[in-house]
Structures are given as C-alpha cells and as structure tokens.
C-alpha cells in the first residue's frame, strides 16, 4: 500500500505536480516563487544597482542631473519633501487628477466619434468612397502638430489640450473600426440578408459584434497615444497636469520632481492600458471560446 502511494507521488512529481500542494499557501508559493519571477527581480535589482552606482558612487560627467534612486524614493514617500511633491502633498494628486480627467475625456470623445464614423465607413460604400480620402488626408498630420492651431482656435486651456490628446486616438479608432467591419466574413451578411434582417439590425447584430475585436485593438492604441500626446500638449500648452509638472520642475531645476512625474505617468499609462485590455477580454469572451482559448 505504501509502495503504491510512493509510486503515485513519483508519478505526480514527474508530471510536474507537487503532491502536497493543496493548501493555499503552497499554491501561492509555487505560483510566485518561480525562476521567472526570480530572474525578473534580479534584472530589476541590477537596474537599480547600476542606477545607484552611476549617480551616487561614481558619477560620470552629466550624470549629476540624475537623482540617485534612494534619494528619489525617500523624497517621494517623505512627509515634507524638499521640492513640494510627494505622496503626501495634495498638489501631486491634483496634477494626477487633472491629467487622468483629460486623458479619459479625450479617450471618451475619441471613441464616441471614432467608432460610429469607422462603422459607417465600413457599412456604406458611398460614404466610404467620399469620406475615407478626407480621413487619409488628415491622418498623417501628427497630433502635436495640431497644438498651435488648437491653441489659437479653441477657447481656454482645457479644450486645446483635450483636442490634441483626442486627435491620435480618434484616427486609430476610426481606422480599426473600419478594418473590423472589413474583417467580417461575407457569409454573415448573406445569412442576415436571407433571414430578412433590416439594415439597422445588420448594424447592431452583425457589424458591431463582428468588428468588436478590432475596435478594442483601436481602443488600446488610442489609450497609449492619448497619454503620449497628453504629455506633449501639457508641456507645450498646459498650465497643470503631470506633463506641466515635469516642465515646471525642469524650469525650477527640481530634478526629483521630474522623475516622480515621469514614473507616475508611466504607471498611470500602464494601468489604463491594462484596464482596457481587461474590459476587452471580458466583453469578447465569446470570441476566445470560439477559438478554444478559454
């Protein structure tokens, strides 16, 4: 009897199972203490060590402009920072809030305008023939090249910045929604026609769900470029927000603040993209099932 259980255990081990891993902490341990995580942590540790070495121990010329990581993080979490920005200062959160609101307003505008336009482009041939050349005419102009025009034409500070932030995502959404409609299998349209679907029903039951995967690709691109353009817009034309914080810190030579704002921007951008990806996965679970991935 004992022989058999020992054999079972061997078999389980050979198949990569651990026989005792039924309690949660062992599962947790197995999941998070793998070689992959270990190597990743080593890489990050090496990165910070090199950073520390080049800014605190041996400082090559021009590296004096880069704050050392220990000082940077103690400033970031200190209750009274030397430069006025840390996780305890309300100003920091005000800049974050302004930037986040701008990005999401621009993102919302971009998808509210881009998705219907893109679907229309795919839906109606005449509309496509007439509007697509105009879209292609305007699309190559980079969003930040719109800054001077936006500042002169739109009122206030908010509208130009949001307009510039919206611009890139707008074209990405249009193009991807349109490609999404184009990617739908022709037989679906024929089937819908055979079943006597009205044009409206074709739009809601065939075109929209069929184009959804591409639409979400567009959303992901839009979110990425929104953060990108936001920084540019805020640096050139803003009076608040994280991009402005970077530029303001530059003008007052508060090097630590530049880095705090950069890291914050990176994390916020990363989180926003992750959020979109999660929503996309939730909404399109049917498609993953179809492909046998879930």
């Amino acid at each position: 009897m004992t022989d058999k259980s020992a054999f079972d255990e061997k078999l389980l081990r050979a198949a990569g199972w651990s026989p005792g891993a039924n309690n949660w902490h062992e599962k947790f341990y197995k999941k998070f203490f793998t070689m992959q995580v270990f190597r990743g942590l080593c890489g990050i540790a090496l990165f910070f060590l090199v950073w520390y070495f080049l800014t605190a121990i041996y400082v090559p010329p021009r590296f004096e402009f880069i704050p050392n990581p220990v000082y940077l993080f103690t400033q970031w979490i200190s209750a009274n920072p030397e430069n006025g920005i840390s996780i305890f200062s309300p100003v920091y959160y005000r800049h974050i809030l302004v930037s986040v609101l701008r990005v999401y307003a621009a993102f919302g505008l971009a998808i509210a305008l881009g998705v219907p336009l893109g679907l229309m482009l795919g839906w109606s041939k005449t509309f496509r023939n007439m509007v697509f050349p105009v879209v292609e005419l305007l699309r190559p102009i980079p969003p930040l090249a719109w800054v001077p025009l936006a500042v002169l034409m739109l009122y206030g500070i908010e509208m130009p910045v949001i307009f510039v932030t919206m611009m890139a995502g707008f074209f990405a959404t249009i193009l991807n929604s349109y490609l999404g409609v184009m990617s739908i299998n022709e037989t679906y349209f024929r089937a819908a026609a055979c079943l006597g679907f009205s044009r409206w029903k074709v739009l809601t039951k065939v075109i929209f769900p069929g184009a959804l995967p591409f639409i979400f690709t567009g959303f992901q691109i839009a979110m990425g470029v929104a953060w990108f353009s936001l920084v540019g817009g805020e640096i050139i034309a803003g009076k608040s927000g994280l991009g402005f914080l970077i530029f303001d810190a530059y003008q007052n030579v508060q090097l630590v603040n530049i880095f705090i704002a950069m890291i914050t921007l990176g994390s916020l951008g990363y989180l926003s993209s992750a959020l979109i990806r999660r929503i996309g996965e939730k909404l399109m679970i049917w498609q993953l099932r179809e492909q046998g991935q879930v």
Partner: protein
Amino acid sequence: MTNSSSFFRSILSRTLLEGMLGILIFFGIWQLARSIGLLVVLPGPIEVIEGAPAMMSQANYLLSWSNSAKRVFLGFAIAVVLAIAIGVPIGMSRKLKEFSFPVLEIIRPIPPLAWLPISILFWPSSELTMVFLTFLGAFFPILINILAGIDSIDIRYIQAALSLGAGKNTLFWKILVPGALPSLFTGLTIAIAITWEVVIAAEMASGDNGLGFMTWQSYMSHSMVGILVGMLSIGIAGLISSQIVSLIGRKFMPWLKK
C-alpha cells in the same frame, strides 16, 4: 482604342470620382465656413494656397525639411540597430528575456516626451536631445515587435530544421530572420510615425530649426497660413517616410504579396 477607353474607365471609376467629390466637399465646406464668417481665426483653403508660395520660398523652408528629416533618420537608425542588437538575443533566450523584460516594462510606459526636460539637462546640445527623444520613441515599438515576431515562430519549424541537421547559422538565417521580419517591419511602420510626432514636439519645445520649430514660429507670429503650411509639410514628410519604410519592407519580404 480599347486600351485608352479602359484607361479612362479605370481613372474615372466610381470610387475615384466619389473620393474626389468627398475631398472637394471637405474643402468646399471649409471655404464656405470661412466665407460666411464662421471661422474667424482659421484662414480658408484659398488663402492658404495663396499664402503658401511665399512661405515655401523662404530660405529656411527647405532647410527645415532637411533638419527634421536628419533627426528622424538618425534617431530611427540608432533605434533600429539597438533594438535588433538587444531584441534578438532577448528573443532567443528565455532566461535572458525573463531577466531583462521587467526592466524594459518599467521604462517602456513612460511617454517619450516625458523624457524631454531631463534629456535637455543631460545631453550637451539640443540636437542630441532631439535625436535621443526620437530614438526613444522608435526604440520600444521596434523592440516589442521583434520579440513578438520571434515568439510567433512556430516551434515545429525549429524542430524540423534541427532534425534535418541545421546548424546555428542556418537556424538563424533560414528560420529566425524570415520568421521575425514581418513583425519587425510592423514595428518599423509604427516607429517611423512616432518619430515624426516626437521630433515635431521636441522642436516646438526646445529646437531652433526644423519643421516643428517653423510651425511654432508661425504660431508665435500669429501667422495662421504658416501654421497650416507647417502642418501640411509635416503630414507629407510623415507620409513619405512611411511609404519608404513599407517599400523597403516589400523589397525585403517578396513572399508577402499584397
């Protein structure tokens, strides 16, 4: 006779006619809005066309083109070389990837333009700053796409090659390179668009020449025609660069017919 008539038919196809109509309507609405006074600040298309030659015959107009193009090319070329030099070893070795990928993921989400102030301080000249930012904008899309390209290679190809006795060299040139090339060129197409965007912003913020600076100067002197000519030039420059990249892509990958 038949030749010329089919030529005319293809030129005067419905698609093309409707496309031209669409663009005409776009400019028509723009001009109309200007003529009836809806657009107070923005000049109409006719004013832009009238004002453009004066703008374009300025001595520094062509110089702006070549200066911006030089920065884009330099940053892009450095990014391509470095991304390939770093991406190929990382993509081929799982250990190396697990080691370096988290660090890259920390740096990657920071928008290139957020590096602007620190690069102004760090690099000794504004020229280097702009090339560095351009490089930064192009580097990560190329790198990510190289990694994705190598990942997408079917393991069976490698197994088949190994069982047929392929050496490391053959494996690299016959499997890895053709397998990862399409994805690499996707990355290059994305990257070239970003480089123009970054160069424009960097020139607006810290440059003293180039197309972005020219547009910014027009803004400073409230010359709307200048701004529009600048935007149009930037758009055309971006379009030309993307076309060059996709042309090279087609040359390198003749098996991908489109």
